[in-house]
């Protein structure tokens, strides 16, 4: 490189370009990670195919896929917005990625916006894939698409808040273990593949307040039962979103 190569000419790129670049990078990192793909793509797809075709769990009246598809969509949201995001962000914090980006022209809010956009891009890919699989299995969804969209967005906000809270406060290894454990517990107890009415009444009313149950229940109300707007479930997700994002904003440590 010749003389004058390094002559100072500083300046931040336009905000839109920074967010675009950051979102693209975050999405690539998400999709390149094998464990993440297992969690976000392979497990939901396998569960959908397995439980729709093999009669393991009594899913009530109607086709299994009509019961399972909404639950698996909820699982997909949780896997990306909560588990995947918590683990990835926890390690980015641990390895100084968040710190280094903090010294770049990219504002912190723009970094978090990019993370959210990367989660949304991944979710769109998941929803498309799982919808195609579900249709192939004979799925016949009903209901208001707007209600579905609202549930997915509020669910993403709720799970992102909880995932970032975990990533920004615990050690990376603790986040890794806890996020996977929570994923597994909520998979079983959150109405994803096991109908909530299999649980005793008292337990059920508590479980119904979990964000995963609110999301899977809401999606099922709309897609399976044709409900127009599941206000109760939306309200539960909104409360989780406010609590989760609020606590994350307050307690998140960048280093």
């Amino acid at each position, binding site marked *: 490189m010749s003389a004058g190569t390094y002559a100072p000419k500083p300046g931040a790129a336009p905000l839109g370009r920074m967010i675009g670049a950051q979102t693209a*990078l975050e999405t690539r990192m998400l999709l390149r990670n094998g464990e993440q793909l297992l969690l976000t793509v392979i497990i939901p797809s396998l569960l959908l195919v397995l439980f729709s075709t093999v009669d393991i769990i009594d899913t009530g009246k109607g086709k299994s896929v009509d019961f399972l598809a909404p639950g698996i969509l909820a699982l997909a949201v949780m896997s990306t917005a909560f588990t995947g995001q918590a683990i990835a962000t926890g390690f980015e914090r641990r390895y100084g990625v968040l710190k280094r980006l*903090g010294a770049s022209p990219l504002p912190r809010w723009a970094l978090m916006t990019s993370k959210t956009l990367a989660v949304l891009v991944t979710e769109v890919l998941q929803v498309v894939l799982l919808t195609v699989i579900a249709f192939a299995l004979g799925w016949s969804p009903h209901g208001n698409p707007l209600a579905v969209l609202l549930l997915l967005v509020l669910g993403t906000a709720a799970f992102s808040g909880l995932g970032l809270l975990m990533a920004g406060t615990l050690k990376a290894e603790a986040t890794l273990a806890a996020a996977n454990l929570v994923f597994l517990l909520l998979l079983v107890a959150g109405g994803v593949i096991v109908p909530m009415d299999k649980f005793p009444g008292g337990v059920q009313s508590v479980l119904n307040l979990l964000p995963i149950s609110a999301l899977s229940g809401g999606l099922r109300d709309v897609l399976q039962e044709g409900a127009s707007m599941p206000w109760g479930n939306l309200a539960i997700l909104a409360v989780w979103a406010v609590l989760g994002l609020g606590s994350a904003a307050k307690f998140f440590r960048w280093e």
Partner: protein
Amino acid sequence: MKSEPALPSPGRRPSGRPSGSHPVVEVSGLVKRYGPKTAVDGLDLTVGAGTVTAVLGPNGAGKTTTIETCEGYRRPDAGTVRVLGLDPVADAARLKPRIGVMLQSGGVYSGARADEMLRHMAKLHAHPLDVPALIERLGLGSCGRTTYRRLSGGQQQRLALAMAVVGRPELVFLDEPTAGLDPQARRATWDLVRELRADGVSVVLTTHFMDEAEALADDVAIVDAGKVVAQGSPEQLCRGGAENTLRFTGRPGLDLGSLLKALPDGTAAAELTPGAYRITGTIDPQLLATVTTWCAQHGVMPDGISVERHTLEDVFLELTGRELRA
């Protein structure tokens, strides 16, 4: 003593103290505590524009805390910090595009490739350097498609350095840029720092290598226990400490009284053994010329003439009573 020939380079001033233009870093009375531990304890530091300043000290002296306060990561418990005239915390948004930062370690997605991360950092800036040329310059082409976590320590260091300069900053902070590098990679990093200075970039680096500070820095701030105990050019610091020594041999019984009259006050001369002479004092080029001129006038051939100047290592030991690298 200096391992490099004194090549004329634009940023290099003959004497070390920042002068003329406005300083790029002004730290005064900085205090930073972590719980009961005081990491930085009333530190003052001034960095002149266009200079390379080395913050030199042992591990735990407060170097990284000081640098990271300048970078806006830490809020001072007391004192003021101004970088390019800005408050690193309050004016962060205006400051960050203008500085380049190399952390002591990490800072890259473990699944990202070197070129991918560098390209990304370039996209965050308005007028970045040419990425392929920078990759070539720092020998990062050999990283290929390897992701960050599988790069060697040296490759990771060079990537971090590239990330610090790709945005064409006015001021670069390098936290131990050559720690863990082999001698060849270390030289390559030194060359880049010199090129930055030649192009008008100010550089602040921390190091616990004396030779690095001596070879690179216009100005050295010696930090110990959270304070700057001395600051100046390597030459000034080495001159300011204990006396230096000039030795030569000649015929026995020279008239040292006559020699001393030609030399500045405070210079001492002795004939240690017959024909072996030692002169102590401020040994500078002028003094050396005076001695050889005197020898010429007296028909003396000074054999084995040698100058022993103090190194920063001696200065550090003298100032702190401790070895730099214990």
